[in-house]
């Protein structure tokens, strides 16, 4: 039995290592995302209903409804959302990923990332920046206005920019950023800088007014996390084909919806294994504490699923102080991740680990044997819609997700008659 599993995992890792995530352009959600429609809102994490949604998700949905002109006020939006007229589905079911609340609506512009090695694509909205934003569940008029600006100015400029520039190899950009102090989940400063440097000349070459070009450049520059919305679909696109490998115990999805944490394992296909999301024990901004925190939320841990983000913490010492640790802690975290993964990345090398490759290919067997859980670097959202980020810290998925997955996996093998008695 072990041979079958080892071979399957080898195959899955080969797919992951070979991934070539490439930014090929931008599009409007309902035009490019499979299955997208006016009455469908995508969200982060595993499936969830309006009733179960926490503050940030609800706020995001309400903002989305007002943005789509399906509701005029927050009260109307809440009523509409509860009415059943609106469908909800995980971003992950539509080849998409979304940070924090991760709400995607029909009109929203999205990055289009293609995995050149296997042809599959992944989508992600453009990062709104910091402060009161939809992804933190804010739904005030300024949120809507900002989204409208992104749709009418940011999007067209960037779309033409990439058409002029041509596709951008995200794998290479992430590789470089990892050697510049980023882990491309919570720390994206270097990657964002590399992106802006790469596309700035092309921005200038577009047909838009100087005013618009300046606004776009200034916006991109004001937001260190611009690149997060590229590293996420890059990871998604890399992992998705591995999720089809039969009998593989490799985790290809980790995601949270603010209420539950969910994982998916290659062998069990699209099945979610969920458990209550945790409250993060991290460093809170002055005036805030664990009591204010929303449970863990967002698709951004798709980066950790790939072996970057928190798994590569050793390479981002700056982030560690922010989450209350020391550079030595960061190295310890990354080192421990090798115990639950399968291979070292052939491309994402980590200088403080003597250039060892990032720990890649989370194996549910190893997680359960060692009781070491994947480490995730994350921002913490206020539990009330719209207040925004209240801290940052390290969080883990619940062990229950992996235990459920192992049980389902063994049942699957039994059903297939692969287990000797």
């Amino acid at each position, binding site marked *: 039995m072990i041979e079958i599993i080892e071979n399957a995992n080898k195959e899955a890792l080969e797919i992951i290592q070979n991934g070539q995530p490439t930014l090929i352009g931008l599009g409007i959600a309902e035009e490019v995302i499979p299955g997208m429609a006016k009455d469908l809102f995508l969200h982060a994490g595993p499936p969830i209903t309006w009733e179960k949604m926490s503050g940030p998700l609800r706020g995001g949905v309400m903002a989305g409804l007002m943005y789509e002109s399906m509701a005029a006020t927050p009260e109307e939006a809440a009523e509409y959302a509860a009415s059943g007229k609106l469908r909800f589905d995980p971003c992950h079911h539509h080849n998409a990923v979304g940070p924090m609340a991760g709400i995607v609506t029909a009109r929203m512009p999205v990055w289009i990332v293609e995995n050149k090695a296997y042809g599959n694509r992944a989508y992600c909205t453009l990062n709104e920046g910091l402060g009161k934003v939809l992804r933190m569940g804010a739904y005030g008029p300024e949120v809507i206005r900002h989204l409208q600006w992104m749709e009418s100015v940011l999007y067209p400029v960037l779309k033409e920019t990439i058409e002029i520039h041509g596709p951008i190899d995200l794998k290479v950009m992430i590789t470089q950023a990892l050697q510049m102090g980023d882990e491309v989940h919570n720390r994206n400063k270097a990657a964002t800088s590399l992106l802006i440097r790469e596309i700035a000349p092309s921005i200038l070459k577009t047909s838009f007014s100087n005013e618009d070009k300046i606004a776009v450049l200034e916006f991109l520059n004001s937001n260190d996390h611009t690149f997060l919305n590229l590293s996420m679909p890059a990871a998604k696109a890399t992992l998705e084909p591995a999720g089809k490998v039969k009998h593989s115990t490799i985790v290809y999805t980790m995601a949270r919806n603010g209420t539950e944490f969910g994982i998916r394992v290659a062998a069990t296909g699209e099945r979610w294994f969920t458990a209550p999301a945790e409250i993060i024990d991290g460093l809170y901004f002055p005036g805030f504490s664990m009591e204010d925190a929303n449970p863990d939320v967002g698709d951004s841990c798709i980066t950790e699923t790939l072996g970057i983000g928190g798994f590569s913490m050793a390479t981002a010492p700056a982030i560690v102080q922010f989450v209350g640790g020391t550079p030595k802690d960061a*190295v310890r975290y990354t*080192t*421990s991740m090798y*115990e639950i993964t399968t291979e070292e990345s052939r491309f994402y090398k980590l200088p403080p680990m003597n250039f060892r490759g990032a720990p890649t290919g989370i194996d549910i067997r190893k997680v359960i044997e*060692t*009781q*070491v859980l994947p480490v995730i670097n994350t921002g913490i959202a206020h539990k009330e819609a719209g207040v925004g980020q209240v801290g940052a810290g390290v969080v883990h998925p619940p062990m229950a997700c992996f235990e459920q997955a192992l049980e389902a996996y063994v049942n699957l093998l039994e059903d297939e008659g692969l287990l000797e008695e």
Partner: protein
Amino acid sequence: MTLQTSIKRNAYYDSVTLMLLSRELQKLDGVEDVLVGMGTDLNLDLARGLGLATDDFDSLTANDLFIAAKFEEDLISMQKIEEAFLETLNKSTESDGDDDYQPSSLHAAIQAIPGANMVVVSVPGQYAAAEVEDALDAGLHVMLFSDNVSVEDELRLKQKAVEKGLLMMGPDCGTAIINGVPLCFANAVRRGKIGVVGASGTGTQEVTAQIHKLGEGLSQVIGTGGRDLKDQIGGLMMIQGFEALIADSQTDVIVLISKPPAPAVAEKIYRIAKDSPKPVVIDFIGGNRAAIESVGAIACISLEDAAQKAVGILRGQPVTDFTGFSIAEEEIERLVANAAAKLKSDQTELRALFTGGTLADEAMKLLGVNYDIYSNIPLSPEMAIKNLPEGRGHICLDLGEDEFTRGRPHPMIDPQTRTDFFKSHVDGKTGVILVDVVLGFGSHSDPAGAVAASVREIRQRLSNQGKDVVVIASVCGTDLDSQDLHKSVATLEEEGILVMPSNAQAVRLTDRVMQRMIKGV
């Protein structure tokens, strides 16, 4: 009084650390009772028994750490208790100065150290066998300190080890020194030409310390665990170690130490001894002298004697039983007379409190023959300690035995258990107290100091009755041990304790004093 439980999920600390933490937190002002432990059924029951249970207990798993406390709200808070917990924890890890990464599994550890060749296992018994199996499968030798490993597991693992040419020392193996590296409980001794295979922890410690004191050294000291020489195991490790020492170019004399083996097993060992090109000293404590000598091996009458004979043979000197004392008989007589003179006529009882099992054994072997001694390791079932009559009698206890180490660290690690017994078991009827003081790696940082403090307390207590007491001790250790042999001896002697150079001599001196004590002054 407030009852509260603090929980740290997915945290793991070893049992000794937790017990020491419990003890430290107990000292806090305002804390009436506190227990720190992993959320195992055993610990939860223990906590419930102490009246510390709260509703939080239902959510505890074996992977969670809990601090269950009963405290006076006006004097202290749970937060302060947690702070003290962290402080104490950090102190112990700080002094360790150990920044190294700690892998989460044996597998990862083996990858972290290329060339790893020895695994020391001291995890709870129910988990130990699986870890040992993994280690042997990976081709590593094993030192298995844990006890509560089944006989079936021990046999299976030792067979595997023998098949692969590996050492599997244990279970319940406390002492080994491999390539000059002390493992678990062992004394710092010089390298030399004498090799030892021992089934008894403190027995091995005493022999190696004595060899060092006599000026010779140890090539290899191999442990086998206490059950190795029983029929079910058949002496697998004793034989494995014995043959390795015969083949070892650095070993010239071999010493075997154990309680008497099962006869069939003894036979196997004698056969190997018979063909051994190197001299073999066999200390099967209280074993069959004639059988040993008939195969050309050298028999012993005590651990000290085994050391003396091994050294003698190495030096090509004639070998005789060492039955007496290192100091002149006149001096001994003087000591005995002075000691007996201190005692009142109703002070006629012995209190022997040992931390080392084999040292306690030695005491019982001699004293138990001459006197009726109640013990938890009695020479016959009627003399079990629970049978101690109303009128009382002599007591000799091995405080390292299971019944005394439930929820408490071994007395060699933490002297508190013996300190408690000094208080509870020594009174106006006690004439002579006999103890061992074991130094070396694994032992408490100042066992002599703890004994001295207890003796001080006893003398104060007894002086209220106008009485004194005779205390006899031996120190199992060397000048290289961190606890400083000479300082330890001095500490004891300052308290008026009679310190003998070996456990055997301490026991003999005790016998002499008891003869005088019982006949009356």
